[in-house]
């Protein structure tokens, strides 16, 4: 009996020591998981799901290495190109463009960059005037061009003309300009600058947070370390409960012995 009690005592002491040291070792990971977990729970309210991050060092951690774009559309004084879902005016991202860029034209300080189902109007300093969707375009865009007075938009139903404000479209019966918008070789320095800044590839903030929480951001072994931490938490919970229960039992035993 005495031997049994001593053995139990040694076990409890050993368990307590393990509980303590594993708790200390995991403290940092507990904090990490708790903080990222709380942020994830409220990602919507905090706006993480609507924010995008594209810092080059972060993309490198994801193994994303965008290639420099090689083609673009030239308008007087500027190049329009697309990286990811972003439209670039020279090296600067200026608007979201979710469909492939098919043409660009300029008229009186206004730049028109078009995909098949949407068009972007910019000032020549890169400020976004308007994104034109299906509600206002005269049809699916095949090509764009400009004369000295009008923008021209080629669709399946013919060519439409509009002034620089692109408010109204009228059928155009003139000749399609010979120098209509075509993709050309993009200057290397612009392509390199775009690639260096992330190439237009953006990661959703909530996703980055989830990868931080799970450890996926830290390479192949990151998730395993988080798994190990989680197993440690399970050990801490169970050992903590066991230690509490044994302590409670021993307190009750002592009380009974006193009463005798």
């Amino acid at each position, binding site marked *: 009996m005495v031997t049994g009690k001593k053995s139990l005592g040694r076990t409890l002491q050993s368990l307590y020591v393990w509980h303590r040291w594993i708790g200390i070792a995991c403290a940092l990971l507990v904090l990490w998981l708790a903080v990222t977990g709380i942020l994830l729970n409220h990602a919507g309210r905090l706006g993480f799901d609507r924010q995008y991050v594209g810092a080059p060092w972060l993309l490198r951690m994801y193994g994303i290495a965008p290639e420099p774009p090689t083609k673009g559309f030239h308008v007087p004084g500027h190049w329009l190109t697309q990286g990811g879902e972003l439209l670039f005016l020279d090296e600067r991202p200026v608007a979201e463009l979710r469909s492939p860029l098919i043409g660009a034209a300029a008229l009186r300080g206004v730049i028109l960059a078009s995909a098949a189902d949407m068009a972007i109007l910019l000032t020549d300093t890169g400020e976004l005037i*308007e994104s034109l*969707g299906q*509600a206002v375009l005269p049809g699916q865009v095949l090509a764009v061009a400009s004369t000295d007075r009008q923008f021209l938009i080629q669709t399946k139903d013919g060519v439409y003309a509009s002034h620089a404000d692109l408010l109204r479209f009228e059928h155009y019966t003139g000749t399609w300009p010979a120098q209509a918008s075509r993709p050309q070789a993009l200057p290397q320095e612009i392509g390199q600058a775009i690639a260096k800044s992330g190439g237009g590839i953006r990661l959703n903030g909530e996703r980055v947070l989830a990868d931080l929480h799970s450890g996926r951001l830290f390479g192949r072994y990151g998730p395993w370390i988080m798994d190990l931490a989680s197993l440690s938490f399970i050990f801490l919970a169970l050992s903590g409960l066991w230690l509490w229960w044994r302590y409670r039992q021993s307190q009750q035993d002592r009380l009974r012995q006193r009463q005798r």
Partner: protein
Amino acid sequence: MKRRLLLIALTLIACTVQAAEEVYLEPSQFVSEAFDGSPPEPAQLWITGDLREQAGAILGHSPANLRTRYWRKGLRTVWILEEIGKEQPITSGFVVQDGSIEALRILIYRESRGWEIRHDFFTRQFKDAHLQDGNRLDRDIDGIAGATLSVNAMRKLARLALLYHHHVTENDGNR
């Protein structure tokens, strides 16, 4: 038995596929219907200065565009506005008459969830809504579980449409 399992598997796979863009009503059709088939030419509203600040306060961020287009006859204006729900923009149409929302339609929905906002039980809450002090709506809009961000986007756009309507009708006078 094998066919049933295959059918179940395909159904489950289909359920996990992210929803593509859903066009419930073409924006051009919405504009046309709002004016009984005879829409006016579009006009443009430049979002600058104080108007831009007010719009930014409503949206929680600066408006992306420098201008927005609208259609107007007298005290009736129609706006096609977009705002991101969770990750994708929601395209919605507003008809504003005499400073109150006459109609709200979800035109194009691109998210994988939250599409319940397109139904009448949600959109009719906005009927006759107008702005109070501070550019707030005159009523609470009941949310939909699981569509909080889409609902919030609609609240913002409703306020924005009313703000823009006030701006064009008060500045230009009645036409």
